[in-house]
């Protein structure tokens, strides 16, 4: 089992260079570590950027997800026109179609609202929450993303779990990060065998665990040693910050991010949070 070290934090400021000597605004070159306030602000901004990057990667899935209710709406509306063109239209059928149009539009609206919440979120605020509800909120988005990758998602959410004190959007960000890693790990697996199990449980230590286990090839020990390090990546276009930022989010929540091989095969990443 590998756990992101307790002292892990976002990379020190000198490492955050954008091009030649230019540093992220708010960090003075003379103070490599910045003030606490600067560091906090930087951390928040970095999380925001990382979240946007994650959402950007999910764009194809989101577009596909929105297209479904739009297709249903278009089809119902056109069928309505046909029905009304008849000599004696069956108004009951028309009403049924209109109700369906309304509910599909509400569904499309919910997709956009969820996305907007993820994008807009800047001020961290922790509230007591239900981990399962946070997962459920992301379910449709995750399922669409999984569908685009030909992956089946399975949910094993333990009931009656104690509440956790969390910034919901940040925890969902971790969930999406882990999902994207798992989806990429499954690219080499034959289509019928791509599965991710998303589970919640109460650990023996009394922590709430959110885990993603995939049926992929697993993480090689040499990679596992380093994968929580900032800028370490095995992806061609990865930033190497996904797991680091996820680990930071868990750390500021008093929790941990870790990895263990999944059984019978594959990788399992887990986030553990103290109960509220």
């Amino acid at each position, binding site marked *: 089992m590998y756990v992101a070290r307790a002292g892990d934090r976002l990379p020190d400021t000198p490492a955050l260079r954008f091009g030649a000597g230019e540093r992220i605004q708010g960090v003075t070159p003379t103070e490599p570590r910045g003030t606490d306030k600067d560091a906090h602000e930087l951390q928040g901004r970095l999380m925001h950027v990382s979240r946007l990057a994650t959402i950007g990667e999910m764009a194809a899935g989101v577009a596909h997800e929105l*297209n479904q209710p739009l*297709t249903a709406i278009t089809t119902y509306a056109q069928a309505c026109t046909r029905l009304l063109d008849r000599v004696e239209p069956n108004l009951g*059928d028309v009403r*049924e179609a209109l109700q369906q149009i309304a509910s599909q539009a509400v569904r499309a609206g919910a997709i956009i609202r969820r996305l907007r919440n993820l994008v807009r979120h800047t001020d961290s605020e922790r509230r007591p929450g239900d981990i399962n509800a946070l997962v459920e909120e992301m379910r449709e988005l995750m399922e669409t993303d999984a569908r685009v990758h*030909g992956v089946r998602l399975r949910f094993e959410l333990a009931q009656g779990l104690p509440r956790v004190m969390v910034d919901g959007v940040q925890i969902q960000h971790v969930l999406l990060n882990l999902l994207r890693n798992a989806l990429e790990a499954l690219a080499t697996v034959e*289509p019928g065998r791509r599965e991710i199990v998303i589970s919640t449980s109460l650990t023996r230590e009394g922590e709430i665990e959110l885990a993603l286990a995939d049926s992929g090839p697993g993480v090689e020990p040499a990679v596992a040693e380093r994968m929580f390090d900032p800028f370490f990546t095995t992806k061609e276009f990865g930033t190497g910050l996904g797991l680091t930022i996820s680990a930071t989010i868990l750390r500021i929540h008093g929790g941990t991010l870790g990895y263990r091989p999944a059984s019978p095969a594959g990788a399992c990443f887990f986030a553990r949070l103290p109960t509220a």
Partner: protein
Amino acid sequence: MKEPTPTVFVVDDDEGVRNSLRFLLKSVGLTAITLPSALEFLKTYDPEQPGCLVLDVRMPGMSGLELQQQLNVRGAMIPVIFITGHGDIPMAVEAMQHGAFDFLQKPFRDQDLIDRIQRALATDHKNRLALKERDSIRTRLDSLTPREREVLDLMMRGKPNKVMAAELGLSQRTVEIHRARVMEKTEASSLAQLVRMVMDSGSASTAR
């Protein structure tokens, strides 16, 4: 025997899309059966049932493309119209290469879908008639005796009776009788029709 009513099968994992398509097809008087997955379709699919398949390319579990491949392996002839989300064009191209009847991008104009469905149903009907005709010709050809079959093969190559008689070691009279029996059993009205029937049935002899 009465022909079963042609049925439009709709396979899409999205419940909203599925129900809206059933509603539309019902509103234009088509018989539609909707299914949430490729596996569900395979479970209920009867190759004898005339119709067409409206299939979502991208689905969890078995994708639309995989279902198409399964159907191809089984030799199923049902015409497949793919419906795709945007960005799925490469998949649609692949589907066409594997013999898809047509494809449409979601969302689509209802008339475009209905036109394609009507064309697919017409094609399916034509294919089924052709298949039936072929089966019937095969049955007739199978009823020939080995000797009649030999005569038929020589007729196909345009040999006159005299040559046939010499080749088969028969009298010309006997060849004429066999010839008449071949025409009678195959119900061919002319040599030209007979040749076409044998070619269409795919059972033309390649010997010699």
